[in-house]
C-alpha cells in the first residue's frame, strides 16, 4: 500500500516534471524577439552592429534581436512618430531627445541588481549627465564624445609658434590664430565656434542665455558675461585669422567644414570632436589635442555628450531588453564596436585598450575627458536649442557677417531680449524648463 502510494506519487511527479519540461522546452524553442533601432556610423559601422547581435544571441539563445539600421536623417522623425503613436517604437534605441525621456524605462533597480555591471564602470560625468534623469537611471551612456581644440603641429612648426597648453585663454587663442594665418596659402589660424553658449562661452563666464528657472532673459542674454563672450567672438571675427562661414561651408553643410580644412592643412587649429580626431589620425595629420581655452579663475568646462541607449517604457519584454541593453552598451558590446569600428567606449577600463591609446593626441584627449561637462545644460533644454537660439541668432549672424561695431554688441543683445523672452514663454509651457 505504502509502496503503491509511493508509486502514485512518483507517477504524479514524473508527470509534473514532464509538463514543466515541455513548457520549458516550448520556451526554449520559441525565443523572445526584441527590436532594436540603431544607426551606422564610422565609429559603429554595420558589421560591428551585426557582430554585437551575433555575439549576444550566441550568449542568449532564447532572445532574438531584430535590428534595424537607419539613416540618421530619418531617425528623429521616426522616433517622434513611433513614440507619439504609442506603438511600434523599438524595445531598444537611442533616446537622445529630451522629450523622449518620459518614454524610457526606469532601469535603476535592474542596474543595481546586476552582478556584472555597475554605474561605477562608466565615466562618472558621462553617466550622470546622459544616463540619469530626475534621479532615475534611464539608460546607459554609449560611447563618449567631447569637443576640444586640435592643432596641426606642422602648421605651428612652420610658423614658429609654440604649441598651446591647457592653461591658455580665449585671447591667447586669437593671438595664436593670428600668428598662424597665411593669406597666400589660404590658411587660417583657427576656426570660429559653431554656436553661442558652448564650452568657451561658459569659460568666459556667460553661463546661460536665461535664468535657471527658465523664466527671464533680461540680464542673462544681455548680461556682462554674455556681452564679454560675444565681444570675444567679435574680436575673433575681426582678427581675420578665422575662415568666414562661407569659407568653412565650402562643401560642408553638416559642420564638416572645419575638419575638412584642418586635414587639408588650411586650418591651424580647430574645435573638433573625437570622431574628427580619428578621421585626422587616419589621414596622417600630425596633430595634438588641448582642451578649449578658458579664463583663469573660472572653472573650465568641456562640451561633451554620449548617446543615451535606453529601453522603451512600452516594451513587452523588459527583462530581455535589459539583457541586451547591458550587453550592447556594456563592456562587451562597446568593445566589439571599438575593435570592428572605431568607437570610444564610455567605460574607462575598455577605453584603455583603444588601439591608439599610447599616442600623444590620445593622451591629450583623455585629459579632456576629465573636465567638468556642460552637458546638463545642453541636454535638458530643447527650448534653447530650438526656439530661443533661433530668436537670438541675429546677434550671431551680425557678428559673423561683420555688420556691427565692437561697441554695438551690447545694444544688439539688448534688442534681442524681447523676441528671446517671447520664444521662451511660448516654449517652456510646452516642453518644460
Amino acid at each position, binding site marked *: 500500500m505504502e509502496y503503491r502510494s509511493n508509486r502514485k506519487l512518483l507517477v504524479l511527479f514524473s508527470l509534473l516534471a514532464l509538463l514543466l519540461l515541455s513548457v520549458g522546452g516550448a520556451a526554449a524553442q520559441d525565443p523572445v524577439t526584441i527590436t532594436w533601432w540603431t544607426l551606422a556610423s564610422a565609429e559603429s559601422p554595420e558589421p560591428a552592429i551585426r557582430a554585437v547581435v551575433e555575439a549576444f544571441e550566441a550568449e542568449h539563445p532564447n532572445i532574438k534581436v531584430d535590428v534595424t539600421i537607419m539613416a540618421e536623417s530619418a531617425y528623429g522623425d521616426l522616433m*517622434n512618430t513611433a513614440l507619439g503613436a504609442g506603438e511600434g517604437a523599438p524595445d531598444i534605441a537611442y533616446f537622445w531627445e529630451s522629450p523622449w525621456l518620459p518614454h524610457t524605462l526606469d532601469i535603476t533597480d535592474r542596474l543595481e541588481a546586476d552582478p556584472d555591471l555597475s554605474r561605477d564602470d562608466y565615466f562618472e560625468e558621462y553617466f550622470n549627465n546622459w544616463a540619469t534623469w530626475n534621479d532615475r537611471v534611464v539608460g546607459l551612456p554609449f560611447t563618449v564624445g567631447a569637443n576640444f581644440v586640435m592643432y596641426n603641429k606642422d602648421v605651428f612648426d612652420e610658423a614658429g609658434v609654440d604649441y598651446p597648453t591647457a592653461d591658455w585663454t580665449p585671447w591667447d587663442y586669437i593671438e595664436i590664430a593670428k600668428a598662424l594665418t597665411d593669406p597666400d596659402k589660404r590658411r587660417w589660424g583657427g576656426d570660429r565656434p559653431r554656436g553661442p553658449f558652448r564650452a568657451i562661452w561658459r569659460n568666459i563666464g556667460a553661463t546661460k542665455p536665461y535664468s535657471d528657472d527658465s523664466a527671464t532673459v533680461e540680464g542673462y542674454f544681455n548680461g556682462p558675461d554674455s556681452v564679454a563672450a560675444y565681444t570675444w567672438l567679435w574680436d575673433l571675427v575681426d582678427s581675420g585669422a578665422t575662415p568666414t562661414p562661407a569659407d568653412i*561651408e565650402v562643401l560642408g553643410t553638416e559642420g564638416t567644414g572645419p575638419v575638412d580644412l584642418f586635414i587639408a592643412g588650411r586650418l591651424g587649429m580647430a574645435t573638433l570632436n573625437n570622431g574628427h580626431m580619428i578621421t585626422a589620425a587616419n589621414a596622417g595629420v600630425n596633430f595634438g589635442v588641448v582642451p578649449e581655452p578658458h579664463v583663469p579663475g573660472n572653472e573650465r568646462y568641456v562640451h561633451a555628450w554620449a548617446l543615451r541607449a535606453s529601453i522603451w517604457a512600452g516594451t513587452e519584454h523588459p527583462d530581455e531588453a535589459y539583457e541586451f541593453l547591458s550587453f550592447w552598451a556594456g563592456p562587451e558590446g562597446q568593445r566589439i564596436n571599438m575593435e570592428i569600428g572605431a568607437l570610444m567606449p564610455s567605460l574607462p577600463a575598455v577605453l584603455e585598450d583603444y588601439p591608439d591609446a599610447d599616442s600623444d593626441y590620445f593622451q591629450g584627449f583623455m585629459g579632456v575627458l576629465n573636465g567638468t561637462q556642460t552637458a546638463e545644460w545642453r541636454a535638458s533644454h530643447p527650448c534653447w536649442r530650438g*526656439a530661443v537660439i533661433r530668436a537670438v*541668432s*541675429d546677434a550671431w549672424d551680425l557678428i559673423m557677417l561683420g555688420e556691427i561695431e565692437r561697441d554695438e554688441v551690447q545694444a544688439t543683445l539688448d534688442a534681442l531680449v524681447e523676441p528671446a523672452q517671447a520664444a521662451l514663454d511660448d*516654449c517652456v509651457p*510646452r516642453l518644460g524648463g
Partner: protein
Amino acid sequence: MLSHWRKMTTQERRDAKTGYLALSPWMLGFAVFYAFPILATFYFSFTQWTLVEPPVWIGLDNYIRMFTRDPLFVSSLKATTLFVALSLPLKLVLGLILALLLNLKIPGMNLYRTIFFVPAVISGVAVSLMWIWFLQPDTGVVNTLLSYIGVQGPYWFWDRDWALPSVAIMSIWKVGGAAIIYLAGLQNIPAHLYEAAKIDGANQWRRFWRITLPLLTPTLFFQLIIELIDAFKIFTEAFVITKGGPLKATYFFLYYFYEEAFRNFNMGYASALALFLLLVIMSATVFVYRTSGRWVFYEN
C-alpha cells in the same frame, strides 16, 4: 442633385454612372491621401502637440499667436513671397527662351535637350553641395570668373541680401524641366499659321508676338500655375544650405513648418502654419486662374 439626376435620360444616367465608376479610384485616393491628412492637420492646428505626448486642445491659441505675436511667421511669409516673385517670372521667361532655342530644327538638338534637362532631374543633397561650392565667394567658379572681368562678386548664400537671389538662381538652373513643356507647346503650333504669316510679310519678331506667344498662352498658364505652387513649397535649399540664414533671409515658410514640426516638437503650431500655407497657395492659384480669361487664348 437628386432633382438633377431625375431629369437625366437613361443614357445620361448610364454615362454618369460609368463616369463615377471611372473616377472612383481617384475619389478613394483623395479621401485617404488628401482629405484625411488635411482634416487631421486641421484638428491638430487647434491643439498643442509635442508629437511624443498626446495632443491637448487649446482652441484658437495657435492662430492667435500666428497672427498677433509671431515675427517669424511674418518674416518667413515675406521671404517666401519674395522668392516666388523673384524666381517665378525669371523661370517662366528663361524657360521660354531656352525652349525657343531648343525648338530650332538643327542637327544634334536631341543632345542639347538632354543636357539642359539634366539639372531638372538631379536632386538631393549633392546638388545643394555643388551649389555651395559653385557660389563660394573666394574660391567658387562664379566669383572667379567674375574676377576675370574685374567684378567683385557678392557673398551669395552668406550675404543677407544675396542669399535669397542665390536660392532663386539654383531654381533657375532647373529651368530645363519647364523648357520641355514649352517645347511641347511650341511643337503643337500648326506650321500653316507661320506659312500664312510669312506670306503676309511678317518678320520673325512679329511672328513670335502674333502667333507663337498667343498660341503658347495655355502652356504658359499651365506653367505659371505649376511653378507658382512649386515656388511656394521652397524648402530643400533652406534645409540643406542656408538653414534659413543669414539673418533669416531664407527662412522660408515650409522650412519654418518643418523646424516647428520635427525639430521643436511643436506639431500643433506647425499644423496651423501648414494650413495657412495651403490657403495662400490656393488663393494665389485662384487669382491667377481668375485673370486667365483675359490673357489665355485657346485655338478655335
